[in-house]
């Protein structure tokens, strides 16, 4: 195989190496799901405990911004997928463009999130003991904001990691590290990015669209 120059010494061929990397990333994604799972369980418990408060409190969230952000992330999943396709076809330049588009979209997401957070901080709609707002009826509205900030905060942290990973593979791609024969890092970064998007797809209705 012509691609053997990228095969680490302990793998017998490029295919084994690629398969291993992909399985490794899938296993890692499982751990991510369980990590978020903990906070989702906390969400479920408190929503059952305080259904009316959750309904009232969710109105404080900005559905428009949430919807725009959902769209931004879905498009970014598309661009990263297209980027992977381009590098599979050996088109490095096009791949770089798609990766850049993904990074820009990720930053747009964070900017919108920043405005949402800033607004809530301004109003005192904050977690736990920092909660000072008093326009939400029901018991313990600060619990809703504890869960809201935990879920979206941990998610935003993952977006940041995603941006770093995407930037890293983009730079490597610009330096010509990847080709139609070897593109595993692009592919597994893409996998990670899809998961981060997917988690938002669950977060959005659970937080913004309580009916």
């Amino acid at each position: 195989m012509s691609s053997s120059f990228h095969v680490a010494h302990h793998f017998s061929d490029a295919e084994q190496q690629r398969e291993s990397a992909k399985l490794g990333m899938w296993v890692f994604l499982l751990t991510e799901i369980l990590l978020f799972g903990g906070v989702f369980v906390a969400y479920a418990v408190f929503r059952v405990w305080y259904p009316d408060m959750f309904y009232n409190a969710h109105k404080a969230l900005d559905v428009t911004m949430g919807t725009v952000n959902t769209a931004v992330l879905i498009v970014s999943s598309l661009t990263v997928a297209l980027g992977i396709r381009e590098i599979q076809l050996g088109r490095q330049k096009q791949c770089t463009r798609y990766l850049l588009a993904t990074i820009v979209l990720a930053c747009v997401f964070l900017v919108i999130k920043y405005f949402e957070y800033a607004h809530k901080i301004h109003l005192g709609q904050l977690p736990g003991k920092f909660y000072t707002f008093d326009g939400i009826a029901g018991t313990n509205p600060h619990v809703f904001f504890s869960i809201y900030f935990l879920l979206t905060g941990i998610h935003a942290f993952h977006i940041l990691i995603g941006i770093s990973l995407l930037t890293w593979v983009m730079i490597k791609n610009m330096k010509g590290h990847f080709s139609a024969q070897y593109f595993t890092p692009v592919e597994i970064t893409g996998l990670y990015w899809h998961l981060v998007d997917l988690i938002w797809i669950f977060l959005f209705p659970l937080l913004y669209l309580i009916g």
Partner: protein
Amino acid sequence: MNANPSTVSYLEDKKGIWNWLTTVDHKKIGLMYLVLILGSFLVGGILAMLVRLELISPGEDFYSADTYNRFFTMHGVVMIFLFIIPSIPAALGNFVLPLMVGAKDVAFPRLNLASWYVYVVGLLLAFWALLYGGVDTGWTFYTPYSSEIQGPVAMIGLAVFILGFSSILTGLNFIVTIHKLRLPGITWFNMPLFLWGMYATAIIQILATPVIGITMVLLLFERLSGIGIFDPSMGGDPVLFQHFFWFYSHPAVYIMILPAMAIVSELISTFSHKKIFGYKAIAYSSVAIALISFLVWGHHMFTSGQSRFAAMVFSFLTFGVAIPSAIKVFNWLATLYKGSISLETPMLYGLSFLFLFTIGGLTGLFLGTLAVDVHLHDTYFVVAHFHYVMFGGTVVAFIGGLHYWWPKMVGKMFNETWGKIGAVLVFLGFNFTFMPQFIAGFRGMPRRYYTYGEEFTVYNVLSSLGAFLLGIAFVIVGINLVMSLINGKKASKNPWKSLSLEWETQTPPITENFEVDPVITHGPYDYDKVEVQ
């Protein structure tokens, strides 16, 4: 480069501290883990001695109740998170697993090294917190106490989070290595049972550890920014913390015991010189244990006010998880039957395991029984039970495995006589320490107090004397292993006459493990077909 690199052992290849600290060789990383893990065992052991010292008579003897609480908490934290959880997988598993599948390394060698550094960070944080005064929450960190008290709880929480990360990376590496790096000819049902045990352990490491991670993150936020989700005074739920904690920590006892069972399968077959009985039953029972272990966490909360129905389900499932464990024990016994058993040091530990783990497992059923647990909950019966499983089970198997693979790891034989003396003393000291605790607990002595009623004195004196004997036993074991490095006989390629693949390479192995990919001509337990040279 060396003139003849193919026969230079990994210990001789690329020497120097810097080469060790940047190595991606799974064998060196395994040894680096081993050193820190044994160091943690020593610290945890000293803390245990201090606990037993205070308990040698009722009342305040040597230090205050507050100090006592810190000592037993730190004993638990150090032993569980720094010692037992990484012990077998990260130290022995790292060394042996790639050799057993015939690979040159684990699937992600750099990630493997990273996991060691992550472990070091966790270890430093934990010991820093210990020097900072430690915490007195118990290793379970129950809220709201843990979110309110002074002290370095956040630091320890962070350490547990970080150590969990290290454990996840090890598990991830093992899963991918077992799936993708097996040599042609090593099939799922033709690989050593040690690998099945490691695989089942890795499943739990992957699926359970993130939950303790998020729990510790939540506890951190609870302390640092008062999010209140575990705080009843703020509308939070302290029992939710217990659910989270045990969702990890019950499966975690299987992260600790499955690798021990994995070692015992190797020891029993090798030293009986007989094909393992019920290979598939042992293999599948490992996976069954891993899966059922996720469904029993509520048995730690029978007295925490969970619903009666939930308690019944958890009790039932707890009995369920005993079945695959029992299947293993019976298969090991059947392997021993009519085997030509040789009682070398590793085998003594293997047999100790059988005896002690069986007691530990059976007493677990007492605790899984609802009505009985209400009586036994938070007594010394629980302490004795989990020490029989964790120490009598895991630590004994770990030390057995350490003796078993020691020649392969360091290239030297330890003194067999002293090895045997050590093994017997560990067995005696252990039973001396923990058997009386069953009785004290059954008679109502509560755990986690620095003092006790006069009527429990005899059990505690016995237990403390046993603990000191156990301490002496480990000093003997330690000196024997260290002496082997200095003046041990050179180990042969296959000193125990095992058929497993790790014994087919030279001792100690070369950096690349095998000079050429070995051709698999027999299974790891084919003692009935193959004559071992």
